[in-house]
């Protein structure tokens, strides 16, 4: 029986069976969902409470139209914003303001607005409240007041506001994505989101599962289990068994998530509709099958590349702290690729993007980004894949050598010349 298979089975089963895996698989997407739509969702939660707002309107223009401009209601249909005019003259303004300030302080009213007499010319108005960090509320008042004043100015100039509205109407720009073969598809920006989610996923999996391989190697080394294992199987078998075993766990998690996402896709409209009433007609972007295939391909190759690298490094480690140190350069490469992906999304076809997408250590993220945002020539994809596979083979050989010797060395970390010596051995 192949010993790699025995190692693989152990790595895979002991991980998949843990409570941590089950929880991580469930919590992962929930967390992602919470982070991505949570804040927006919470902002949308209206405070249903009625608000008493006093208005000091010295211009005489704004107050009478305010009820009409801001007519938000609670679920029961009553108005949220209850405006009450406070009559004042310009000379008494300061004393009126200080009375209102006390009222706000003592919670008798929630806020007050001050519209100066020359608001129409000076474009100024004031809003006082305990909390002025609610962007949505602030912008609601801003646009209401400026709408009322604009309309007033237009009327003064004897221009029909309806005409202005018609003349300045914005032109809607619909975007269509043309993929290979000239197929076009209407896109309303969600494809960017989907691309981003996929890139983020690649990044996240490479970091998480790569580190897991490293940990699995050095834990075995530090707990000295490895001495018995290595006497019953070849170091290379141990390494490949580990890389594939941990990779299998990642793949399993990936498939569960993709399955869940596919289900979500089918019911997406219903689900999105649950949160955003107006968004029920959003079309979930259709991801071409070829992009999905490349996604899986680059994930697998990227994972094997980094896992092999991590396995080799794990074998060099003698303490946990050393592991953190050694991990950093590898982490840096993944982070670099991820950051660069943002440049590529905007400039997928510059020379720089093409070069970066060819470098094997970045290709899993950067080439995939290019594939997802535009359709690069097939020859470029092929070249990046060939380079990636070639590097993996070289790295497997190299890491295998280092692994074989490193896994039994304790104490001082080998220097670079010593490492080169191991490779020649």
């Amino acid at each position, binding site marked *: 029986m192949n*010993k790699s298979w*025995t190692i693989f089975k152990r790595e895979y089963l002991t991980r998949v069976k843990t409570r941590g895996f089950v929880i991580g698989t469930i919590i992962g997407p929930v967390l992602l969902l919470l982070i991505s739509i949570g804040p927006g969702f919470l902002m949308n939660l209206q405070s249903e409470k009625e608000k008493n707002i006093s208005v000091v309107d010295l211009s005489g223009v704004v107050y009478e139209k305010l009820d009409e401009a801001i007519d938000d209601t609670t679920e029961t249909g009553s108005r949220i914003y209850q405006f009450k005019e406070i009559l004042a003259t310009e000379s008494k303004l300061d004393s009126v303001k200080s009375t209102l300030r006390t009222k706000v302080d003592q919670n008798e009213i929630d806020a007050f607005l001050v519209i100066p007499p020359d608001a129409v010319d000076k474009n100024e108005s004031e809003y006082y409240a305990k909390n002025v960090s609610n962007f949505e509320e602030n912008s609601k008042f801003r646009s209401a007041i400026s709408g009322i004043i604009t309309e007033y100015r237009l009327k003064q100039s004897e221009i029909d506001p309806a005409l202005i509205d018609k003349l300045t109407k914005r032109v809607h720009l619909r975007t269509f994505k043309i993929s290979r073969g000239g197929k076009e598809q209407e896109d309303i920006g969600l494809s960017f989101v989907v691309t981003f989610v996929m890139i983020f996923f690649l990044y996240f999996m490479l970091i998480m599962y790569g580190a897991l391989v490293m940990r699995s190697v050095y834990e075995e080394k530090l707990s000295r289990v490895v001495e018995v294992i290595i006497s019953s*199987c070849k170091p290379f078998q141990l390494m490949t068994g580990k890389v594939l075993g941990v990779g299998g766990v990642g793949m399993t998690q990936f498939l569960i998530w993709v399955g869940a996402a596919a289900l979500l896709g089918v019911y997406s409209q219903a689900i999105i509709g649950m949160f955003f009433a107006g968004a029920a007609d959003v079309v979930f972007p259709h991801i071409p099958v070829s992009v999905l295939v490349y996604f899986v391909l680059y994930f697998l190759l990227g994972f094997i590349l980094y896992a092999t690298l991590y396995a080799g490094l794990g074998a060099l480690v003698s303490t946990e702290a050393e592991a953190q140190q050694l991990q950093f350069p590898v982490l840096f490469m993944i982070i670099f690729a991820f950051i660069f992906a943002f440049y590529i999304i905007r400039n997928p076809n510059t020379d720089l993007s093409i070069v970066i997408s060819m470098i094997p250590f970045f290709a899993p993220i950067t080439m995939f980004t290019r594939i997802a945002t535009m359709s690069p020539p097939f020859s470029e994809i092929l070249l990046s894949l060939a380079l990636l596979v070639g590097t993996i083979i070289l790295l497997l050989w190299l890491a295998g050598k280092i692994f074989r010797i490193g896994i039994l060395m304790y104490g001082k970390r080998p220097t670079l010349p010593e490492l080169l010596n191991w490779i020649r051995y």
Partner: protein
Amino acid sequence: MSVLKIDHIYKSFRNVDAVQDLSLDLEPNVIFGFLGPNGAGKTTTIRMIMDIIKPDRGSIFINDQPNTLQMREKVGYLPEERGLYRKMKISELLVFMAELKGLSASQSKPKIEYWLERLELLDWIDKKVEELSRGMQQKLQFISTIMHEPDLIILDEPFTGLDPVNSDLIKQIMFEQKQRGATIIFSTHLMEQVEQLCDSICLINKGRIVLGGNIRDVKKEFRKNIIRMEFEGDATFIKNQELIERYTDHGTHYEIHPKESAPIQQILQAAAQEVMISKFELMEPSLHNIFIDVVTQKERNGS
């Protein structure tokens, strides 16, 4: 037929000669003591037998075959630095270890149960390794070393951390394994156990074999005329410089080193005339003393 044949192996690390020109030939059915001071090259040799490291020169054969992975399925190895997967269940761990030695789960299950029962760990079969005490973990690793019925069993300090009851249990199992036909390489610093268990020994120092062979032959070679005597009464004969070189009073007994020319018989006669003898024996050198003699002597010669 030989279970293990080591043919002139050499190994050096960074200018340190760990093992030099070491040869061994072990027959089936023996317990072989593999002795030497710290850093003598024992672990290096054992690791070469397990193909964890490769000798610079020379070769190793198991059951008269080249030392391949497949041959090593017939070897069991308990390293000195012990370790198990702490998070695994005991049953799962043993199935995994057996599979590494070429046993399928259905083949290993009954063996696992037998050995867990034998070493009083059956109640723990569904527990995780980390829940066991150190001694229990040691017994568990011992099981994983022998459960696949290897022809060659290598035990590096198997008794450290075990109480006397468990030590005796392991000793008994070692004898049983020997009777089954296995050869056991037993590496330890406890000479007393070597005397109890081993048929033959080899002592290495600084990577070379300095002493080896059947344990009785080794002792005969190192026998010196030292008399251990217990008696009552006033003894003047021990001060007789013609017969006795020197003596030590141990309270309960005397250790007497006779003159080389003096016949033992004459000392006994002289003693019998003066005191009541309750014990008179020619002391066998203990392996302990042989070990120290050989190692320190070599070191003196070496420097």
